[in-house]
C-alpha cells in the first residue's frame, strides 16, 4: 500500500470576489522513502495542496471540495481534527519557508524540539532532552550543547532552518513536507540544507515532498517531480527526465526562463502573457493563452493528465497525441 | 498627447479601498449613523425645544416623563431633555477639542522624535515615559485647584494627558516609515527634505493616527465624565453627560429617569465611536480584515 495516495484533490476559497479554485483535481502517490518534488510559481496551488492534506487551510474561506488523501489507508481529508492532530508532527512533519516566523520566538530551541516528543507521548522529559540534543547535533548545528538553550533570533537563517528540520523529524515521521525550505536562504546555505534533507531522507527512510518554484532545487533532491500550473498538475516525471526532456510546454518555458550559468544569450526567453485569474472558470488547458504550441482544440477540449511514456505523464493535449515535441 | 491623459483609467487609492471596506462593515456604519444622529440632536436639538436647559421650575421638582417634559425634570425642575441634549453638546465638544489638543501635541512630538532619532528621540520618549507614570487624577485635580474651574482649562488638561499615547503611536509609525525603501528612494532622487516629510511621510502616518483618534474621543469623554462626577469638571447650570449622570446617581431611587437617559445617550455614543474606530482600523489594515 502506498504511503500517501492523493486523488482528485479540489480546494477552493470562497471570497467576496468570487470562488478561487486554488487546487483542481490533483493526484499523486508516494511510497515509503520516496522523494517527490512539486514545482510551480506563485498561484499554482502547490502550497495549498499540501496544506489541505494536513487540514491547515482555514475553512472558511477555504473549502476542500473533493478528493481523497489516503495516508497509510486513512483518509486525511475526512479525518476529524483530533485524529489529524495525532498525525501532525508525529507521522507527518512539515517545514516552512521562513524559519524566523515558523519558530516561536519566545521559546528556546530546546523547548521547541522537546515539544513534539512530549505532546505525542513519545518520551518523558529527561529522555526527550537527550533526544533533542542528539537531533540538533545530527542536523549539523555546531556547539549544540550550548546552543540548544538559545532563542531562535540568536541563530542565522540557515541554522534556524536546520532547527526546523530537526523539529520536523524528531518524532520520526513517515513523511516530511518541505514548503520552499530554501527560498529565503543564501545559495551556499541552500546547497547545505538540500544536502541535509537528502541525508536525512536516506538515513531514516523518510518520504519527502519538496515544494519549490525552482525546478533546479527540486531536481537536485527528488526522484520524481510534478509540475503545477493554475491549480492543476501539468506534468509528472522522474527528475532527470523532466530536466532533460520535458513534455509540457510550461515546464519547458520554466526551464528556458531561467538564465543558465553557461550561456550568455542576447535575450532571455520570457513566457508571454500573465498567469490566469483562478476566480474565473476556464475551459480547456489553462496554459493555452500563453503557449506557443496552442491550437483551437487546446481551449475547447477537456484536458487530463495522461501517460506519454513509462512513469511520465503530461497534461498537454498535443504532446499526448504525439503532435509536438516540446524540447 | 491628450489621448494619453484621457485614456488613463482611474486608479483606486488606498483611502478609497478603505472607505469601501468601511462601508461594508455594518457595525461601523451603524456607529457612524448613530453618531450623526446624536450629534445632530445635540447641536441643533436645543434650538428646536421650547424649554431651555437652565430654566428652573421649583414647583415641579423631579417629575417623571410627561407630555410636557419628554424625559422628565430634575430636582430643580429643569427640563431633562434639554439638559441631555445640551449636555451632549458639551461632552462631544470636550471630546473633540481635547482630542484635537492631544492630536496636535502628540503628532508633533512623535514626528520630531521619530525623524530625528538618536539622543533627541531618547530624551523625548523618556519624558513621555515619566509623564505616563504620573497619576492623572492628582495632576488634573491640582490644575483645577490652582487655576480654578475653567471650562477651557478642562479640555486642555485632558488633552495634555492623552497626547502621550498619540506621541508613541506616531513615533512608532515614523520609525517604521523611515526604513521603508520609498523614503530612501525619495532621498536618492534628490527631493528636498520638506517635500519628503509632507508628501511621503505624513500621508503614510495618517492611517493609524486616524484610528487612534476615533478611539481617543471616547476615552476623553469618559475622563470628562469622571471629572464632572467628582465635581471638578463642568459646573451647573451647564450640563454634561457626566454631570447629569452624577446628579442622576444621587437621585437614583426616587427618580431613575434622571440617571437612565443621560447614561443611555452616553453609552450609545461611546459604543458608536468604538465601532467606528474598530471599523476604521480593520478597513485601513488589510491584514487585520476578517474576510
Amino acid at each position: 500500500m502506498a504511503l500517501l495516495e492523493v486523488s482528485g484533490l479540489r480546494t477552493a476559497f470562497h471570497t467576496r470576489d468570487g470562488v478561487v479554485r486554488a487546487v483542481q483535481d490533483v493526484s499523486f502517490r508516494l511510497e515509503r522513502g520516496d522523494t517527490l518534488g512539486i514545482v510551480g510559481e506563485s498561484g499554482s496551488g502547490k502550497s495549498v495542496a499540501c496544506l489541505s492534506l494536513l487540514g491547515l487551510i482555514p475553512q472558511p474561506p477555504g473549502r476542500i471540495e473533493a478528493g481523497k488523501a489516503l495516508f497509510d489507508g486513512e483518509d486525511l481529508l475526512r479525518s476529524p481534527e483530533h485524529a489529524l492532530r495525532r498525525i501532525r508532527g508525529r507521522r507527518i512533519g512539515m517545514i516552512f519557508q521562513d524559519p524566523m516566523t515558523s519558530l516561536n520566538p519566545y521559546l528556546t530551541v530546546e523547548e521547541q524540539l522537546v515539544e513534539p516528543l512530549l505532546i505525542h507521548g513519545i518520551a518523558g522529559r529527561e529522555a526527550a532532552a537527550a533526544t533533542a540534543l542528539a537531533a540538533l547535533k545530527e542536523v549539523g548545528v555546531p556547539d549544540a550543547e550550548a546552543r540548544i538553550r538559545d532563542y531562535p533570533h540568536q541563530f542565522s537563517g540557515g541554522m534556524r532552518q536546520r532547527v526546523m528540520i530537526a523539529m520536523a523529524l524528531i518524532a520520526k515521521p513517515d513523511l516530511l513536507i518541505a514548503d520552499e525550505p530554501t527560498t529565503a536562504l543564501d545559495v551556499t546555505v541552500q546547497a547545505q540544507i538540500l544536502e541535509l534533507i537528502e541525508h536525512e531522507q536516506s538515513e531514516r527512510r523518510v518520504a519527502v515532498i519538496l515544494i519549490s518554484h525552482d525546478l533546479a532545487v527540486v531536481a537536485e533532491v527528488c526522484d520524481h517531480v510534478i509540475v503545477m500550473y493554475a491549480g492543476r498538475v501539468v506534468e509528472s516525471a522522474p527528475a532527470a527526465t523532466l530536466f532533460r526532456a520535458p513534455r509540457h510546454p510550461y515546464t519547458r518555458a520554466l526551464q528556458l526562463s531561467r538564465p543558465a550559468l553557461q550561456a550568455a544569450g542576447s535575450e532571455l526567453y520570457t513566457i508571454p502573457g500573465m498567469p490566469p485569474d483562478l476566480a474565473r472558470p476556464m475551459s480547456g488547458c489553462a496554459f493555452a493563452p500563453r503557449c506557443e504550441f496552442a491550437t483551437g482544440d487546446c481551449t475547447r477540449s477537456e484536458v487530463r493528465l495522461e501517460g506519454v511514456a513509462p512513469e511520465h505523464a503530461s497534461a498537454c493535449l498535443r504532446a499526448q497525441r504525439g503532435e509536438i515535441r516540446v524540447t | 498627447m491628450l489621448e494619453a491623459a484621457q485614456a488613463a483609467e482611474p486608479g483606486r487609492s488606498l483611502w478609497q479601498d478603505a472607505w469601501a471596506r468601511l462601508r461594508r462593515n455594518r457595525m461601523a456604519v451603524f456607529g457612524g449613523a448613530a453618531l450623526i444622529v446624536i450629534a445632530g440632536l445635540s447641536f441643533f436639538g436645543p434650538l428646536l425645544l421650547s424649554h431651555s436647559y437652565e430654566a428652573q421650575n421649583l414647583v415641579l421638582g423631579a417629575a417623571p416623563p410627561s407630555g410636557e417634559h419628554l424625559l422628565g425634570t430634575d430636582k430643580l425642575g429643569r427640563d431633562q431633555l434639554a439638559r441631555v441634549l445640551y449636555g451632549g453638546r458639551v461632552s462631544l465638544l470636550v471630546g473633540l477639542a481635547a482630542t484635537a489638543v492631544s492630536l496636535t501635541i502628540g503628532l508633533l512630538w512623535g514626528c520630531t522624535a521619530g525623524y530625528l532619532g538618536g539622543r533627541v528621540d531618547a530624551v523625548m520618549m523618556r519624558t513621555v515615559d515619566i509623564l505616563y507614570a504620573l497619576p492623572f487624577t492628582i495632576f488634573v485635580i491640582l490644575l483645577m485647584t490652582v487655576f480654578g474651574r475653567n471650562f477651557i482649562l478642562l479640555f486642555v488638561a485632558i488633552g495634555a494627558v492623552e497626547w502621550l499615547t498619540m506621541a508613541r503611536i506616531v513615533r512608532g509609525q515614523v520609525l517604521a516609515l523611515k526604513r521603508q525603501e520609498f523614503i530612501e528612494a525619495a532621498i536618492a532622487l534628490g527631493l528636498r527634505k520638506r517635500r519628503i516629510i509632507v508628501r511621503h511621510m505624513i500621508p503614510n502616518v495618517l492611517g493609524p493616527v486616524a484610528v487612534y483618534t476615533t478611539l481617543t474621543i471616547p476615552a476623553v469623554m469618559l475622563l470628562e465624565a469622571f471629572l464632572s462626577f467628582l465635581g471638578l469638571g463642568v459646573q451647573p447650570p451647564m450640563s454634561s453627560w457626566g454631570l447629569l449622570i452624577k446628579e442622576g446617581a444621587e437621585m437614583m431611587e426616587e427618580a431613575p429617569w434622571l440617571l437612565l437617559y443621560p447614561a443611555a445617550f452616553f453609552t450609545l455614543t461611546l459604543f458608536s465611536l468604538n465601532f467606528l474606530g474598530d471599523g476604521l482600523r480593520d478597513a485601513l489594515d488589510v491584514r487585520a480584515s476578517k474576510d
Partner: protein
Amino acid sequence: MREPYLELRHVKTHFPIERGFLARHRVGAVKAVDGVTLTIAKGEVLGLVGESGCGKSTLARTILRLVPPTEGAVLLGGRNLADLAAEELRAARAGFQMIFQDPFASLNPRMTVHDTLAEAIQAHRSVAPAELSDEIASLLARVGLAARFSRKYPHEFSGGQRQRIAVARALAVRPGLIIADEPVSALDVSVQAQIINLLAQLTRELGLTMVFISHDLAVVRHLSHRIAVMYLGRIVELGPSAEVLERPLHPYTRALVSAAQLGDPDRKAARKRVLLAGDPPSPVNPPAGCAFHPRCAYAIEECSRIAPQFEAFRPGHEAACIRVRQINAL
C-alpha cells in the same frame, strides 16, 4: 581600460555599535564594507555577487551617498562626492539612481504612478505641464507599460509591473549610473526574465553604466561585462563574467558557482565536492587574516594571519587569496 566613470578607493563603511544611555560609547563596529577598491568604465555593467551579510547593499548605499563612507573615496566622473556641499549633493543625485529589491516597498503606496513619475521628473528640472504628460507617457513606454495605467496606485500592479515603474522613476532624472540592488530577487522566475531583458536593453540604448547586485550568479552573468565577488565587506575576485564563472580562482567563488548549478544531473557529482561548511559569518567580528579562511577547504596556517592582496592571475582577472596558484594548478 576605458575612461573610468565610477571609482571606489579603499572605501570602508563601518557602523558603530554604541552602548550607554546618555553618554554613548563605542563598543565595536559592524564592518559592512571593509576596504573596496574598484573602477568601472562608462557604459559598463558590473555584476556584484555575494551572499547576505557580505555588504553589497551597504556598498550600493555608500556609492549613492545614502550612507556616508567611514573611510575612502567615491568618485563619479572624476568628482569626489564627499567634496560636495549638501545642496550640491542633492542636485548631483540626478546623476546616479537606484532600483531597490522590494518593488512594493520602494514605491509610495499613496501616490499614483503619474504622481511618482512627475515628482521624479520635476525633482531637478522644471517641465511645463503639457510636456510633463508626454514625458511620463514616453517613460512608461520605455519600460513596457501602457500609458493608461498612469492613474493607478502601486498596489494595483503585479510585482514585475511595479519594478518597471521603479525603473521608469530611476530613468526620469536622466542618470548616468544606475545601481540595481537585487531587482529581481522578489519576483517569480518567469517575470525575472522580463525585467532582466528590460535592463539589458536600456543599458544598451541609453549607454548607462550599471552596477547589478545579486546573489544569483546566472542572472548576473547574463547582464554583466565583469563580475566582482564580495565576501564580508571585501572584494575577493574580479574579472570578465564568463571567466569568473567558468574558471573561478577564489575558493569562495568556486563554492558559489557549484552551489548555483543545482539540479543539473551531469554536474551533481562535481558539485558535491565543493560544499561550504558553516554559515556566512557576521561582519561585527571578521576573522583575522583572510576573512574566508574559517570556511575554506584549502586554508592553511598562514591564511589566518595574512590578509591577502588583490593580484591578477590572468589578464583582467584578479583574486585575493594566497593559495590561488596551488588551488587552480596555475
